């Protein structure tokens, strides 16, 4: 016993070394055992605190590279967004074309779907730009409608784009009538509120009521008959023979997006006949 104690005392340092070696080896080989002790990994509070403080400083060193990465990534994402938007628009165009309610008024007319890519409502004379042009079968003089009503008429056509005169432009006069009657007048926008236009040259004897619907006459080949334009909201004034009334337009010009451009298959024929009549007169 005494010998054992002496032995232990004499070689105590070696014993301690052996114990530490055994502990280390145990830690080394039993991966699972040490993973149970979070404090033996860098996940413990002290090292997390140290590393947190260090990264507060060192993170600045990578800012430039990080920025570049982010910019690159950003550019990629922006590209993707543009592409997705384009796809979305194409799909919408298809769906919209398939599902949009076609009024009987459109019989005999065909149409081209288009997106409004530029629009104004606040200028004295407003114009629209469409993303379809002569390549898509658009020609000057074609009418433009959206799901709510009249939008404008095409004036200048490029290969893949077209400029249109908005209904909100005093140069554009539209022949309209009170729905259910045959009394017609001329609709014009006089500036100001983009929701209100004036229907002029109505005969005095017509009985009109607030809320009556105003539709196109179909006297020109630009728009078919019966497309809704707006509703009567009030008097605008009168002279000897005619009255003028304020019309609230059904088209929301602030939100014109997808439109259809109306093609009249018989336009050429009709125009030439009307010109012949004018000549003979």
């Amino acid at each position, binding site marked *: 016993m005494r010998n054992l104690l002496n032995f232990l005392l004499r070689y105590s340092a070696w014993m*301690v070394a052996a114990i*530490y070696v055994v*502990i*280390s*080896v*145990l*830690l*080394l080989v039993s991966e699972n055992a040490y993973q149970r002790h979070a404090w033996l990994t*860098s996940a413990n509070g002290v090292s997390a605190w140290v590393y947190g403080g260090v990264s507060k400083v060192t993170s600045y060193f990578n800012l430039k590279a990080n920025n570049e990465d982010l910019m690159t990534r950003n550019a990629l994402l922006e590209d993707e967004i543009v592409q997705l938007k384009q796809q979305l628009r194409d799909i919408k165009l298809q769906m919209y074309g398939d599902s949009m309610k076609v009024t009987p008024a459109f019989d005999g007319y065909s149409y081209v779907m288009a997106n409004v890519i530029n629009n104004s409502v606040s200028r004295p004379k407003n114009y629209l730009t469409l993303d379809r042009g002569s390549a898509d079968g658009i020609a000057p003089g074609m009418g433009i409608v959206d799901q709510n009503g009249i939008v404008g008429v095409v004036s200048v056509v490029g290969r893949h784009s077209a400029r249109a005169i908005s209904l909100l432009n005093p140069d554009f006069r539209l022949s309209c009538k009170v729905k259910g009657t045959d009394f017609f007048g001329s609709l014009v926008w006089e500036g100001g509120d983009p929701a209100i236009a004036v229907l002029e040259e109505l005969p005095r004897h017509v009985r009109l009521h607030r809320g009556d619907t105003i539709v196109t006459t179909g006297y020109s080949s630009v728009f078919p008959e019966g497309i809704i334009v707006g509703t009567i909201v009030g008097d605008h004034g009168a002279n000897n023979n005619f009255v003028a009334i304020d019309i609230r337009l059904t088209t929301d010009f602030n939100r014109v997006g997808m439109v259809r451009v109306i093609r009249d298959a018989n336009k050429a024929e009709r125009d030439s006949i009307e010109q012949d009549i004018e000549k003979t007169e």
Partner: protein
Amino acid sequence: MTRDVLKYTLMFVLMVLLQAVIFNHVAIFNVACAFVFIYFIIRMPMSLNPIVALTLSFFLGLSVDIFSDTAGMNSLACTLLCACRWPAFALCVQRDDEQELPDPSLRGLGWGAFFKYALALTVTYSALICVIQAFSFADYKLLLVRIGASALLTFLIILGFASITHTDSAKRL
């Protein structure tokens, strides 16, 4: 005595932090790593009780292990290194038996002896840790390169430390 305890405690903490924060991220050509914290083991007084020295070494290794998620590796290597201190010291330092054990520092040993002593321990540690990390001698060429490169890098940095503290002490004197 108290001053020494404070000094070595500070050195312990400083070495672990330096290793965790800076030198763990150093890997030149992916072979040369710096195990700078063993400077503490090199500098522990030779007169220190072996059990205390072994304990300190073990916990030094364990601390570094905790920071670098290498449970057991550095603690094993540090314990073994600590055991190698006395033979290395005896081999490198010529002394008379009556003399008090000199401090294993640049000032206590002088350039020549300290150079040999530190180099011996550094090479020993590099060999230990690299073998433990690799856990095999299969790719012995790469292992040798790693041991050599790591030992050289560690030794250079440790010499730097030693000379800094050396001039500091000289000024104070």
